[in-house]
């Protein structure tokens, strides 16, 4: 049996005291143990940012990528080896800003992996600049006139037919743990956005700010996460009330089940042919 200590941090934390990331990595740890996944069955891929350091605070295979580039590498690793549980993690700047095009591509492609976005609506590692999700009017050193038109990434996810879309809150770990678990169990690209207070640089969207606004869709009678139009409406809801829980879920063919070369066996398990077996291809040129 896998125990919580198997996922003890591989190096000392570098996050600020009180950072929402502590709760998120704790939830993730609990899920991995609950699913009885050995560390060697898990590949954590991250980009750059405070959330990008998360893989180092677990014990697993780790590919800590460039800023914004976690998802391309994570998808490729999963395509090569479906036996791995591939989890990418990063922040709002990393995933929605620098990696925005990859975010779109991955949702369309639907590789079976989990993507956790720690959304604190601010750049932490570079010390306090606005992010794609900063609320309107958010003043920072690079946005002295204030931010405007924040990106509604989950609405984009619905438009992109992302096959699993959830939102959690770093202040509700019980719910978050369940959402991450559902995301990992989902067959396809699972997006879990986590509202995560930044105690150092976001003095507006604080723990209390989120706490007052979040409500779980599980408590909303009649909400059907398979209804795409309803999901679109919910993902646009932001302000006085912010919905959490599973916003959208659909069954779609995964990339791995679509592509002939890997339907039967992951690439890494396939035998490398002797070069002479390519003789028919040489003859095609003759």
């Amino acid at each position: 049996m896998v125990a919580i200590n198997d996922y003890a941090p591989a190096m000392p934390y570098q996050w600020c005291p009180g950072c929402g990331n502590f709760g998120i990595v704790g939830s993730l740890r609990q899920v991995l143990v609950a699913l009885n996944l050995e560390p060697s069955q898990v590949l954590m891929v991250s980009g750059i940012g405070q959330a990008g350091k998360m893989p180092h605070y677990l014990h697993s295979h780790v590919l800590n990528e460039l800023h914004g580039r976690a998802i391309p590498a994570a998808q490729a690793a999963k395509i090569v080896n479906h036996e791995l549980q591939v989890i990418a993690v990063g922040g709002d700047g990393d995933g929605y800003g620098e990696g925005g095009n990859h975010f779109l591509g991955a949702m369309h492609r639907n590789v079976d992996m989990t993507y956790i976005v720690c959304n604190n609506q601010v750049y932490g590692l570079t010390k306090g600049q606005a992010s794609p999700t900063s609320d309107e009017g958010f003043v920072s050193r690079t946005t002295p006139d204030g931010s405007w038109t924040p990106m509604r990434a989950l609405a984009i996810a619905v438009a992109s037919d992302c096959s699993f879309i959830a939102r959690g809150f770093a202040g509700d770990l019980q719910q978050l743990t369940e959402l991450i678990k559902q995301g990992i169990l989902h067959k396809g690209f699972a997006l879990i956005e986590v509202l995560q207070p930044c105690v150092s640089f976001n003095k507006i969207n604080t723990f209390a700010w989120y706490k007052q606004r979040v409500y779980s869709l599980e408590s909303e009678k009649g909400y059907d996460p398979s209804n795409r139009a309803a999901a679109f409406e919910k993902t646009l809801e932001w302000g006085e009330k912010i919905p959490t829980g599973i916003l959208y879920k659909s069954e779609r063919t995964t990339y791995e089940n679509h592509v002939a070369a890997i339907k039967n066996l992951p690439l890494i398990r396939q035998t490398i042919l002797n070069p002479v077996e390519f003789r028919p291809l040489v003859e095609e040129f003759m």
Partner: protein
Amino acid sequence: MAELNYLVGGEAGQGVQTIGFVLGKTMARHGLYVFADQDYESRVRGGHSFFRVRMSDSPVGAYSPDLDVLVSLDQRTIDLHQSELKNDGVVIYDPDKVTMPPGLKNAVGVAFEKTATETTGNKIMANSVATGAALAIGGYDTGILETVLGEEFSRMGASVVDSNLKAARAGYEYIKTQSSSAIKRPINGDGQKRMLIDGNGAIALGALVAGCKFVAGYPMTPTSSILEYIADKGRKYNVVMLQPEDEIAAINMVVGAAYAGVRAMTATSGGGFCLMVEGISLAGMTETPIVCVLGQRSGPAIGLPTRTEQGELFFSIFSGHGDFPKAVFSPPTIEDCFHATVSAFNLADRYQTPVIILTDHHIASSYQTINPFDLSKVEIDRGEFLTDGDAAKLVDYKRHRLTKSGVSPRAYPFSGGPLVVTDSDEHDEAGHMIEDTLLRTQMMDKRMKKMEGMTQQVLTPWYINNPGADLILVGWGSTFGAIYEAANILNKDGIRTSVLQLPQVWPFPADAVISAIGRNGTRSILVENNATAQLANLIRMETGISVNRSILKYDGRPFSADMIVKEAQKELK
């Protein structure tokens, strides 16, 4: 040496490529040596494009500007290329579409479209009428042509094949009966079976043979056909070819796939490579073996999208931020494109670092006859890549363990195996990020140590030494065919000429270059398809030697031997 040069010209969409390729393939089947190159605009319809086919009883590796047969599908082809005809050169053209300029002798009108309509009911078969006629002018019958046409059109069904055969025979018969005086004496082939393959085909085949299992690439001229070939054959040979959202994704996917344990490659051109260079640096830092094909075209920016250039020598060698080891191959021939690809995968695995195959539009899209690859001689060397069994036995595995050679045993992530941790941040031996000075220095030294190993294994420059030479022609990559032919011409003219061609430009083979060009009395002339003589600058940087003269061409077109000969003669005046 006997040779026959065809040029087929017309608008994009008229089937210039098909006629040219079918002619080339037919001649190759006759046992002739063939070199064919393509010239086309960045458009799908209209404009002017041509396909040159040079065939000979001796090996040829460049085009010749002196035409024996000009197949003219439109007026512009005549207007632009009539000056390239030899004295006894023949033009064949469709008199319903093209007006011959007065005074042009040996012009043979063949109503391509009308004949096609009469024999097959479909004017689209005009191409095969032209092909049959063109072949007849060369003195060949339609026997082998019919086999080649059958293969070329078989996927479109029996009736399409049948119509093309009828049309080709009609074109052939027309020349035989109406214009037999224009028929040339055929050059006899040696009956050997050879491949007719382009540089992209050789690279794509090389990648498959080398055991590449994952390719990610965003289409871009001139390397798209590498992606297309692997996507097609990958369905049978179980190779994934993924077209991602952009080149940044492509290179990072390749890093992810290689980290996960398979051989992985991408292919692009200069603009796409610009987007990839951060990923090249990542592969250097994470010690991930990847292969990247960089097919140069004319820059800067979008430049001339369908034209050739060698403007990215420095860009490839110095691609990526920071210091890290890398290798850059520059295959001088289409045949070497295959071998360079296999070598690139082996070198990448041995030194766990990025390897670039630097080609250009000319070599990527030109065809040449070569002896079939001897697959039994292909060696696959994965270096210190660990098998499951060996990896599972490891205690206290550290992905980036400090070693004498700089190469650390490489496990891949699998259930039950050691944890494989790597980071784009500077990291410790275990792969976790660090910032301390001593370890940083040790890790940098470890990575750069691999450059020493790669330097020892650098491919020897191709040196055709003519003792006591007056001249040495120096080049890299695709210019070899023209340079080699130019050297032969110069030698015949009494100018003793050697050739030095670099099949690998990084690590730089300094010792070999010094011993070849550092001699008193031999004037060194550099031949490059770029504006700034990048190899000349690299040679000075790495050896302190300045070449005597640079022959530069940056109009987007490849060199022919005679251009080099003329410039080289100036140097001796």
